C-alpha cells in the first residue's frame, strides 16, 4: 500500500504500478488502483450531536429540570465540559463547528438565510476553508448528516442550487433533514441529499403519524446499518443535529404530560432550583452567585393568576420536546452499541447551538411567526388563539407552531443572564457539552468535569487530532486557511491540563464580547433581542451608533462563573485593553462592519431582482418558504390555466404553507375559492358566486392593495375566463413571511392545509389538470413603491433570519 498524502485533498490515486502489455500475456494487475482512501489506523467513529436553541440550565445532566438520562449516561461514562462556548446564533455556531474556524471568517456572521454583501456575512463558505466532513470524507470516512442544516441561503434551496451550498457540498455522503433554521416536527418539508422530498407521507397517518425526531433517529440507524452491511471497517462521522429544541415546540402529549405541574412555581423559582442542583452536581462552582433577573422579564409573581397555567404549559411542552430529543439520541447510541462499536466511537454532544431562544417574546406564541411578522399579541390573545387551534392540550400538536415565553428561555439559561442572540453574555454563549470515548478516555476519569475555556471552533481540530488526520494544505488545488480552533484532546486524560483557549471574540447582532486570560468584556447593545421596532433600531443607525460608547461590563470568570460581579468601574485599563483587542480580532476575522445582520433596516439592500413573473408548470411541489414569489405588501395576481373535465373538478390549484399563515386557491363544490390566513390570527375567504365551467379554463385571483405598504389591506377579486365572479376584502395581509418552513405546492396542499374545510381530504389534490400557475408580483407598482417594498422585504428577511 502506498503512503497516502493527506495534506492534499482529494487524496490522489496511486499511479499504475503493474504491467499492461498488448495482451494479458505478461501483464500484471495493480489492485491498488481500485482501492480508496482509508483513515489512519485506529481512527475512531465520530458521533457529533448538536441540540438546538437550548440553555445551560435545561438538561438534568447540568442541573436543569428536563430529564436527560441519555445525556447523563454519556457524561457519566465520559466527561462534562462546563466552560464550552458557542456563538449565540444558529448558523454561526454550525459553521464554526463544522469548519473549525470563526464564523465570520467563513461568511457566517449571521444566519444562513441572510446572504449579506460583506465577506463576514455572505453565507457562502470560502473555498479555502474546507469543512470537517469534506476532510473526513476525503480521508476515507463515511459521512452523514441528519436533521437541521441551516447553512444554505434562502434563495438557493431548490433544484437550481447552487448545490455546493447544500450538505452534500460540504462533504456529507448522505443527508436527511431540513435546510432551514426551523421546521415543524409533524409536517416538515424535508430534503434528502440534493432533493426536496417534502412532507413524509406518514403525516397523513392518523394512527401513527410522522414525527421527525423519531424519523431522524430511524434514518440515522438505517444509514449506519447500511454502511456496516457493506463495509465492516470504514469509520463513520455522523452529525446528528436535532430540530429540537427550536420552535415550533412540537411533541406528543405523552411527553409533555411528564412535566404536568412541574413548572407551576414559575421561572424565578425554577432558576433557583436549577442553580442549587448545578452546585450539587459540581457543574457550577460552590462560590458562584445566581445572576439577577433583568427588568425585561416580568416577575412570575406579577403575572395574573389566570394566565399562569398558560405560561406553565409552554414550558411543559418545551421540556417534553427536549426529553424526546434525548431519547432519540439514546436510540442512536444504542444502535452503535449493538454494532459493538460504541466504545470506539468518539461522542461529542453539545446541548444547544446557542442559549435558549427568547424569540417567543414575553407572552410566548401559538405561532412563532407572529413575532417575526411584527404582530404584537397580548398573552390573553395568545391564549385565545391557542384555544382556537385546539386549546392548551394541543400546544405541542400539529395545529400550532408554538414558542414559549422569553422568560422561560432566560430560566433555561440559568445561572446566566440573557440568551440566544446575546453574544455579549454567557446566557447566549455558554452551553453544556459532554464527551465519551472509552477507548481514548481512561475510565478512571469517567464522570469527571472539565473546566477549561473552550469554543465550538475547537471541536473540528480535536476530531482531526484524535483521528490522526492532518488539516489539509490544499483541497481541490486550493490553498487552505488554517483552522482557528485548537485541540483539547489532552483534557481527556488530565483535568488539570492547561487552558487551550486563552483568547476569543464573540459577536452576534452587535452584541460583543472579548475574552482573554479569564477576563470577559461584555458589550451588549441596549436593544431587547426580540424587539425590532423603529424606535428600538434608531440608536443603531449609521452615524448615530458609536460602538465604543456602548455600556461595558467586565467580569473575571475564574472567580465569577456566572458573570454576577461587574468589575468595569474598577478596571478601566482592562476594559480599554479588551476593547482594543476586540477591534483587532473583528478586523482579522471579518466581523466588520458591525450590525451587518441589521443592515437592511438602514437602507443596505441587495439589488432589486428583475423578475416579476413566476411561472410554475405541472406538479411543482415543496417550493421552500424562502423561495415563494414575493407577494407581500402590494398588489399581485395569481392566474392558472386549468383543464376541467366534463364531470367537474375539485382540489387545490396552488397553496402556500398552512392555516397558520398562507394562501390557497382551490375549487370546492364547483366554486372557485381563495383563502388567506394572516398568521392564523385572521382568516379571509372569498368564493365565486358562479360555478366553474368545464374544458379549458383560466382562473385568476387579483389582490388590489390599498397602498404599497407593509401589511396592507386590499380587495380580492376572483375571475373565471376574465369575468369577475367573486370578491371580498382582506383588512390585513402578512407583511413578511407566511411560514418558516412550510412550502408551496401546485395542484395540491401538502402537509398542514391552509383552509381547514378540506383538511379531511388533504392534500386535496386537483382532480382536473393544472397546466400552469403564474404569479405576477408587479402589476401595479411604481418604481418608488418597488424600492420601498424591496427594502421592507429584506428587513423582514433579516428579522426572520435572526430567529434561525
Amino acid at each position: 500500500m502506498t503512503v497516502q498524502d493527506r495534506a492534499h485533498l482529494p487524496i490522489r490515486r496511486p499511479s499504475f504500478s503493474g504491467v499492461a502489455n498488448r495482451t494479458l500475456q505478461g501483464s500484471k494487475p495493480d489492485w491498488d488502483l481500485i482501492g480508496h482512501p482509508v483513515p489512519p489506523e485506529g481512527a475512531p467513529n465520530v458521533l457529533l450531536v448538536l441540540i438546538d436553541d437550548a440553555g445551560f440550565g435545561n438538561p438534568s445532566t447540568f442541573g436543569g429540570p428536563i430529564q436527560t438520562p441519555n445525556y447523563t449516561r454519556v457524561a457519566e461514562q465520559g466527561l462534562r465540559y462546563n466552560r464550552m462556548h458557542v456563538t449565540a446564533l444558529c448558523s454561526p455556531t454550525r459553521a464554526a463547528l463544522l469548519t473549525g474556524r470563526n464564523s465570520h471568517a467563513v461568511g457566517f456572521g449571521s444566519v444562513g438565510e441572510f446572504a449579506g454583501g460583506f465577506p463576514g456575512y455572505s453565507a457562502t463558505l470560502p473555498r479555502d476553508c474546507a469543512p470537517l466532513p469534506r476532510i473526513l470524507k476525503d480521508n476515507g470516512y463515511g459521512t452523514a448528516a441528519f436533521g437541521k442544516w441551516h447553512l444554505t441561503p434562502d434563495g438557493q434551496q431548490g433544484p437550481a442550487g447552487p448545490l455546493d451550498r447544500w450538505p452534500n457540498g460540504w462533504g456529507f455522503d448522505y443527508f436527511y433533514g431540513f435546510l432551514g433554521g426551523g421546521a415543524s416536527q409533524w409536517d416538515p418539508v424535508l430534503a434528502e441529499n440534493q432533493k426536496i422530498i417534502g412532507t413524509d407521507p406518514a403525516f397523513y397517518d392518523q394512527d401513527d403519524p410522522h414525527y421527525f425526531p423519531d424519523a431522524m433517529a430511524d434514518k440515522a440507524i438505517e444509514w449506519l446499518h447500511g454502511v456496516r452491511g457493506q463495509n465492516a471497517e470504514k469509520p463513520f462521522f455522523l452529525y446528528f443535529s436535532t430540530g429540537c429544541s427550536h420552535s415550533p415546540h412540537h411533541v406528543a402529549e405523552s411527553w409533555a404530560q411528564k412535566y404536568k405541574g412541574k413548572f407551576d412555581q414559575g421561572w424565578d423559582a425554577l432558576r433557583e432550583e436549577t442553580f442549587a442542583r448545578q452546585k450539587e452536581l459540581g457543574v457550577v462552582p460552590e462560590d458562584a452567585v445566581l445572576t439577577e433577573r433583568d427588568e425585561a422579564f416580568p416577575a412570575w409573581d406579577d403575572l395574573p393568576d389566570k394566565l399562569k397555567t398558560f405560561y406553565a404549559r409552554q414550558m411543559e411542552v418545551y421540556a417534553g420536546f427536549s426529553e424526546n430529543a434525548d431519547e432519540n439520541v439514546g436510540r442512536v447510541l444504542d444502535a452503535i452499541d449493538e454494532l459493538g462499536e460504541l466504545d470506539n466511537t468518539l461522542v461529542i454532544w453539545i446541548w444547544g447551538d446557542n442559549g435558549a431562544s427568547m424569540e417567543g417574546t414575553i407572552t410566548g406564541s401559538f405561532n412563532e411567526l407572529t413575532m417575526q411578522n411584527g404582530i404584537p399579541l397580548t398573552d390573553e390573545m395568545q391564549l385565545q388563539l391557542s384555544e382556537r387551534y385546539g386549546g392548551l392540550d394541543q400546544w405541542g400538536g400539529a395545529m400550532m407552531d408554538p414558542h414559549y415565553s422569553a422568560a422561560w428561555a432566560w430560566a433555561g439559561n440559568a445561572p446566566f443572564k440573557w440568551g440566544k442572540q446575546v453574544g455579549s453574555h454567557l446566557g447566549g454563549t455558554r452551553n453544556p457539552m459532554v464527551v465519551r470515548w472509552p477507548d481514548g478516555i481512561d475510565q478512571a476519569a469517567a464522570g469527571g468535569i472539565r473546566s477549561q475555556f473552550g469554543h465550538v471552533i475547537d471541536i473540528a481540530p480535536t476530531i482531526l487530532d484524535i483521528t490522526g488526520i492532518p488539516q489539509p494544505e490544499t483541497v481541490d488545488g486550493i490553498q487552505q486557511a488554517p483552522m482557528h480552533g485548537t485541540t483539547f484532546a489532552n483534557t481527556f486524560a488530565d483535568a488539570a491540563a492547561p487552558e487551550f483557549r486563552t483568547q476569543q471574540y464573540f459577536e452576534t447582532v452587535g452584541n460583543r464580547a472579548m475574552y482573554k486570560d479569564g477576563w470577559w468584556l461584555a458589550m451588549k447593545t441596549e436593544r431587547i433581542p426580540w424587539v425590532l421596532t423603529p424606535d428600538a433600531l434608531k440608536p443603531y443607525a449609521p452615524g448615530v451608533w458609536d460602538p465604543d460608547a456602548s455600556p461595558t461590563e467586565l467580569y473575571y470568570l475564574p472567580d465569577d462563573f456566572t458573570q454576577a460581579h461587574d468589575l468595569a468601574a474598577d478596571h478601566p485599563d482592562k476594559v480599554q485593553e479588551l476593547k482594543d483587542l476586540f477591534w483587532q480580532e473583528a478586523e482579522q476575522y471579518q466581523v466588520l462592519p458591525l450590525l451587518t445582520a441589521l443592515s437592511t433596516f438602514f437602507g443596505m439592500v441587495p439589488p432589486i431582482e428583475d423578475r416579476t413573473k413566476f411561472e410554475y408548470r405541472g406538479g411543482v411541489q415543496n417550493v421552500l418558504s424562502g423561495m415563494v414569489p414575493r407577494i407581500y405588501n402590494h398588489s399581485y395576481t395569481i392566474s392558472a390555466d386549468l383543464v376541467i373535465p366534463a364531470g367537474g373538478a375539485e382540489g387545490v390549484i396552488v397553496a402556500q404553507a398552512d392555516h397558520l399563515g398562507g394562501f390557497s386557491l382551490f375549487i370546492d363544490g364547483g366554486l372557485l375559492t381563495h383563502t388567506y390566513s394572516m398568521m392564523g390570527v385572521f382568516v379571509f375567504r372569498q368564493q365565486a358566486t358562479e360555478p366553474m365551467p368545464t374544458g379549458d379554463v383560466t382562473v385568476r385571483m387579483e389582490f388590489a392593495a390599498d397602498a404599497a405598504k407593509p401589511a396592507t389591506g386590499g380587495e380580492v377579486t376572483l375571475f373565471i375566463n376574465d369575468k369577475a365572479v367573486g370578491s371580498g376584502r382582506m383588512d390585513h395581509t402578512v407583511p413578511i413571511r407566511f411560514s418558516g418552513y412550510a412550502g408551496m405546492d401546485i395542484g395540491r396542499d401538502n402537509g398542514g392545509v391552509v383552509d381547514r374545510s378540506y383538511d379531511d381530504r388533504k392534500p386535496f389534490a386537483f382532480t382536473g389538470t393544472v397546466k400552469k400557475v403564474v404569479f405576477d408580483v408587479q402589476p401595479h407598482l411604481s418604481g418608488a413603491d418597488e424600492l420601498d417594498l424591496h427594502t421592507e422585504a429584506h428587513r423582514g428577511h433579516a428579522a426572520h433570519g435572526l430567529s434561525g
Partner: protein
Amino acid sequence: MGFDEETTDVLIGGYLSAEAAKEDYESVRQCGARLWGAVVVSKDLEGELSVEQTDHLVEEGAAGLAGVGFVVGLFAPPLLAATAIGAALGAVGGKVLHNKSSTQIEQIAGETIPIGGAGLIVAYKHVDADQVEQAVTRAVKKAVGEAEGHHVKALKGALAAAQAKMAEQEG
C-alpha cells in the same frame, strides 16, 4: 321603575376564540345581574357559524334580542399599530341591524364574524353594570353603550353607542 324608564346598557366584546367568548357568556349569566339578554356568536375554522343566546326580553313580552337585531359587530384588535411593519387593523365592520328575524341573525353574523372569531353582546340594567362588566374578563376588546327610553329603541341606541366606542378604540 318600569322597563321603559330604566337606563339600559349594552356590552359588546370581541374574542379570538369561541371558548373565551362562551366563558364570558356563562360568567355573565351566572353573575347575578338581571339580564335582558345575551348572545354569543362564533365561527369555527371551517367557517361554520354557531349562535347561543338567552332572551329574557321575550319573557318580558318585548320584541326580544333577535327582534332588535343583535348581531355582533366583532372588532378586530389593533394588532400592528406600534410596530415597524404594521398598520392598525381596521374594524371588521360591525353592522347595526334593523329588525332582523332570528333566522337572519346567522346570515348577517356569517358575514361579520371572522373565521375562528367570536363575539358577545349582553344587555342589562345599568344598575347591574359593575356585576356584568366584572364578569367579562376575556374580551380582547369590549365597549359599553347605554340609552334610555322605550326598550327596543333603547337597546338599539345602546348597541350603537357601544359600537361607536369600539370603533374609537380602533382609531
